[in-house]
């Protein structure tokens, strides 16, 4: 390292430390006051901290690696303390990013956009365009079939299945023994979220399926891509030409799409459903060499065979689910 760099890094570090300790004092002072800290002082602190971060990232390359890392760590700590303060000061209901904590930036921390502006923008958006969007939601202890879904136009559309508990959903293209090819072929993607203790019998679709928050359920589906998030104890019977993925899941068991349910002459996907039950499931929360502990292949002897394809009354539904759902 050249002398000029050395000189620079010395001055920079001294300067950096003094600014940092100043910020630290201000943060501590805010913490000590029992009353909720004023928004203005929080905002000032955020801006000053971002400036410091910017200066640090500008100095990248002129500082020894060790010092750089130390400085980054200190900034990160300050950021964490600040965000904790902000959380305690802002009323919960006001505005919160649902997103998980963003990884701390190694470079300049962008100042968070003004919440007020954000919310205004969102409300201006036409969010609920339901014209080509089917949905099945907020049901419990019921047997749900195609009859509950408004007859779709010929246009392709998304299907959303949400907030179900103790339900059997049967959207197979077979209704009471007679194949009905028209059902299901116009679904482009299926979103499923917040479903517990239920069985979902779904047709083969050509698009993707996205699942969030499923518990103790069984999903039967044929699709192009499969993404499952934050779920546990779910058995998945699947026909898929690509690799299914899971993220933040546990206790997921995979098995092939049951032949008995795919008897209809609707177009089968790219390869036979009698494939060996080898699944190359990718677990995005377990990116290692070792096998993921979050999913297994369901043994053939454990495959469900008594599929509840016949409509049953609501009391029987609970009994059926009791016997089939993973616990």
């Amino acid at each position, binding site marked *: 390292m050249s002398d000029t760099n050395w000189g620079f890094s010395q001055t920079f570090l001294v300067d950096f430390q003094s600014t940092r300790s100043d910020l630290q004092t201000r943060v501590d002072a805010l913490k000590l006051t029992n009353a909720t800290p004023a928004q203005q002082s929080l905002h000032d602190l955020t801006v000053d901290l971002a400036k410091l971060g910017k200066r640090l990232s500008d100095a990248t390359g002129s500082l020894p690696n060790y010092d750089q890392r130390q400085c980054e760590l200190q900034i990160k700590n300050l950021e964490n303390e600040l965000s904790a303060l902000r959380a305690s000061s802002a009323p919960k209901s006001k505005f919160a990013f649902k*997103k*998980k904590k*963003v*990884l701390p*930036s190694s*470079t*300049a921390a*962008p100042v968070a*956009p003004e919440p007020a502006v954000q919310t205004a*923008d*969102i409300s201006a*958006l*036409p*969010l609920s*365009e339901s*014209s*080509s*969007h089917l949905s099945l939601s907020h049901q419990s202890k019921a047997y749900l079939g195609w009859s509950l879904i408004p007859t779709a*136009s*010929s*246009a*392709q*559309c*998304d299907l*959303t299945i949400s907030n179900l508990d103790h339900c059997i959903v049967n959207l197979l293209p077979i209704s009471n023994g007679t194949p009905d090819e028209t059902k299901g072929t*116009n679904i*482009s*993607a299926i*979103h499923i979220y917040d479903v517990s203790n239920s069985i979902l019998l779904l047709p083969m679709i050509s*698009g*993707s399926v*996205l699942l969030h928050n499923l518990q103790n359920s069984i999903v039967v589906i044929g699709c192009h*891509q499969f*993404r499952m*998030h934050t779920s546990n104890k779910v058995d998945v019977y699947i026909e898929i*030409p*690509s*690799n299914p*993925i899971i*993220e*933040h899941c546990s206790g997921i068991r995979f098995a092939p799409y049951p032949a008995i349910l795919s008897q209809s002459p609707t177009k089968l996907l*790219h390869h036979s459903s009698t494939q060996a039950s080898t699944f*190359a499931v*990718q677990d*995005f*929360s377990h*990116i290692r060499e070792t096998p993921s502990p979050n999913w297994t292949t369901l043994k053939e002897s454990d495959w469900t065979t008594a599929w509840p394809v016949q409509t049953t009354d609501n009391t029987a539904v609970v009994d059926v689910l009791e016997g089939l759902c993973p616990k």
Partner: protein
Amino acid sequence: MGLLTIIRKNRQKEKEMRILFLGLDNAGKTTILKKLSGEDITGISPTLGFNIKTFAHGKYTLNIWDVGGQRTLRPYWRNYFEQTDALVWVVDSGDRFRMKDCKDELHSLLLEDRLAGASLLVFANKQDLQGSMTESEIKDMLDLPGIKSHNWRIWSCSAVTGHNLVTGLDWVIGDIASRLYYSTTVQSSQ
């Protein structure tokens, strides 16, 4: 010789462009890329990590980086920002449900220092699905007219049929070229 001249001369020799493909999961980023390079698109799995494709397009060499859009991967997007000439934001036009998510992610990217100046191409993908949102609907829902920091353009396209993929790419290349290789484009037009 001024610094700017040296930089331009240097870039002329290379004629390389670095293009970053981002978007929510299930938008079709990898499918677009595979379609562009003429590969099979039937068995594409959700991207774990990233793909790089290099191909010659006209007189330029394109380095295209396609990074997975799963939520767990999004924090890593920032690792790919350096030296990016253009950002291609891929949108699933059938996914009305997550348009707000899509808009938020895009706008937070545009605040990034390291993407400042990059051209922005928005691909309204999956137009082959009936009932998908139109280009102008998506433009409004993503608040594209509100973007002042980047040169942007939206194209409807379909990765399955290949519709508009090359057209969109041509636009983005032209936009980068007019910025980076200003001298050459001026010369060639004379």
